[in-house]
């Protein structure tokens, strides 16, 4: 059996038939202000309670300003409707008895950053959230996927979902990542290889030597972007690295329960000889730092390679929008904005990676760089390590936790026509603001680009 199959089987309440999908039990539901108000309204209309508030975790991330907030007025920085959405979430949580890790909790942050860091994300769980990057939690061997708001209502009311069983897709990463090449580069290369629709209908399991050698934060970066290949979820089998990461986290099991959990979690791997519906292998040893050149995360190129040729309407439209040319490397492009943050690369190791490159240097004149920690705990840890000082000394801005410029809902936006090197996960047209031109990259590449003033190879700065 595959890892996916084991976790799936463990949560089937009613088995699927050709007529009716399976009813799948959900162990952890993470909710936030953007994709839940309409779901809470449905519960209110029907007079239903939240069935398992104890399995529901709420936070505020998308519509929150990255400037300090101590009153409602401070929330208005992100706009009036954004502020109202935050307030509505606070009220919904009170009304339905859901624990909110909001302002004043010291634990607020991006949904996919706080689940793991608090130890709520655990191997073998089913985890959902009204946000497609829920795939992040799969790094722990959980089955985690994004759902729509109607389904958020289903989980709030019944702790279950109607689901057809997806197919399985093995992505095997052989070899070792070369020095200066990171998990972000690897996952961009994977999406470039299988395409933005390559994973549709499938759950990916990442396997192989390069994955086993990675720490948890890198594994999260990989699983996070599974959705950008169209996959329903991404998973990595738990191992010592996983257990080591979880041990002692506030919501991880303790004492005898910990030992029992580790024993159970140790079974969660794909058995030898198990069959996947699809399989692909990549050699990590051949990889370079990667950047995107187009308007989806599959349009990627190695940092010093020329942008490929392409002739169809979509390809030409993307290059026109990005104002880049086939045949030239991305390093020809001047940079206006650099964003380090998001659920892909807003954890402590990402901030550290960017800070090490910024250390003792200054960002180029005319470049604006924002470093936004993924959570309040990440922020605190970074400050403890003095990274904030390095970042601000280089001329970059050190902000409060949230999604920020990844989705540009909170007032942090890229202006029309500006080129942004961003550690987030989507370079769609207008994602970071109307007319924003987004280049996805690793934290190291982002920091190097801020210093150079052009899209830059981070290996020159390490």
């Amino acid at each position, binding site marked *: 059996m595959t890892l996916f199959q084991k976790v799936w089987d463990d949560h089937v309440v009613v088995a699927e038939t050709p007529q009716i999908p399976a009813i799948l039990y959900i162990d952890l539901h993470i909710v936030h202000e*953007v994709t839940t108000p309409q779901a809470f309204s449905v519960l209110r209309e029907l007079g239903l309670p939240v069935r398992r508030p104890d399995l529901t975790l709420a936070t505020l991330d998308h519509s929150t300003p990255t400037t300090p907030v101590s009153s409602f007025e401070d929330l208005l920085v992100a706009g009036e409707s954004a502020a109202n959405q935050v307030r509505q979430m606070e009220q919904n949580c009170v009304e339905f008895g859901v624990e909110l890790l909001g302002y004043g909790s010291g634990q607020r942050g991006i949904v996919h950053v706080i689940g793991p860091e608090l130890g709520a994300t655990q191997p073998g769980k089913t985890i959902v959230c009204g946000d497609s990057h829920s795939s992040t939690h799969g790094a722990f061997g959980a089955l985690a996927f994004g759902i729509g708001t*109607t389904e958020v209502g289903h989980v709030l009311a019944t702790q279950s979902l*109607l689901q057809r069983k997806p197919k399985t897709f093995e992505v095997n990463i052989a070899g070792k990542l070369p020095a200066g090449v990171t998990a972000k580069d690897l996952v961009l290369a994977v999406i470039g290889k299988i395409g933005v629709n390559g994973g549709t209908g499938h759950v990916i399991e990442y396997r192989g030597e390069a994955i086993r050698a990675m720490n948890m934060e890198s594994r999260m970066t990989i699983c996070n972007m599974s959705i950008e290949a169209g996959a329903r979820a991404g998973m990595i089998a738990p191992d010592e690295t996983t257990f080591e990461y979880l041990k002692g986290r506030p919501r991880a099991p303790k004492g005898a329960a910990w030992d029992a959990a580790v024993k159970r979690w140790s079974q969660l791997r794909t058995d030898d000889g198990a069959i996947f519906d699809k399989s692909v292998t990549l050699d990590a040893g051949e990889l370079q730092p990667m950047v995107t050149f187009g308007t989806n995360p599959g349009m990627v190129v190695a940092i010093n390679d020329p942008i490929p040729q392409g002739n169809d309407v979509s390809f030409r439209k993307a290059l026109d929008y990005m104002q880049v040319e086939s045949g030239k490397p991305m390093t020809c492009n001047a940079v206006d904005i650099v964003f380090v943050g998001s659920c892909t690369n807003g954890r402590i190791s990402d901030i550290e990676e960017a800070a090490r490159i910024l250390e003792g240097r200054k960002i180029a004149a005319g470049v604006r760089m924002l470093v936004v920690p993924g959570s309040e705990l990440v922020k605190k840890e970074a400050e403890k390590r003095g990274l904030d000082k390095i970042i601000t000394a280089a001329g970059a801005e050190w902000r409060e936790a949230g999604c920020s410029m990844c989705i540009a809902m909170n007032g942090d936006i890229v202006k029309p026509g500006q080129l942004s090197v961003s550690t987030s996960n989507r370079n769609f047209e207008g994602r970071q603001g109307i007319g924003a031109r987004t280049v996805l990259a690793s934290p190291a590449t982002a920091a190097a680009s801020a210093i150079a003033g052009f899209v830059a190879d981070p290996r020159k700065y390490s």
Partner: protein
Amino acid sequence: MKSVKRVQGRTVVLPTRDIDTDQIIAARFLTTTSKEGLGEYAFYDLRYNEDGSEKPEFALNQAAARDCTILVGGNNFGCGSSREHAPWALLDYGFEAVISSQIADIFRNNALKNGLLAIVIDSSNHEWLMANPGTECVIDVEEGTITIPGKRSIEFTMDGFARHCLLEGIDQLGFLQQQSSAIEAFEEKRNWKP
């Protein structure tokens, strides 16, 4: 959900592939707490210039496209964010069906749960529809056919449960609630607790 058995209308074609939900409705319109009135924002940045004037070249702004109810998009329609605001916006705009050769999982799920037909067809029929905007179609959910009078009939498959819910106007939350004893039994009998 209201029952959807049949959709009749003309097509409008968006010729690009990988149309993501950020294009369908940009994030800055997601600070709403309601589902209503999002049609105004559908494809906003493709429909309008910065000064608020219409972009005359965009497909939806053509005079002939104004009352079209069927959207034909390039391969991998609806990829990206899970925002259900995307089907809400398309429905509110006036679309009743989206057709492509591939539709992203979450978008398709969200669309069907709101009564927006999300239909995947084979690539040769898809290419024909892409090349023939303004085609009059009749979509029959029960039969699984798109009929183009005098031209062709295209078959499509849809998950049986999704089809049943569309035809009968079944709300899936109600269905799940009826399973509450099975859900309770599951919580009781599982040998580890989340």
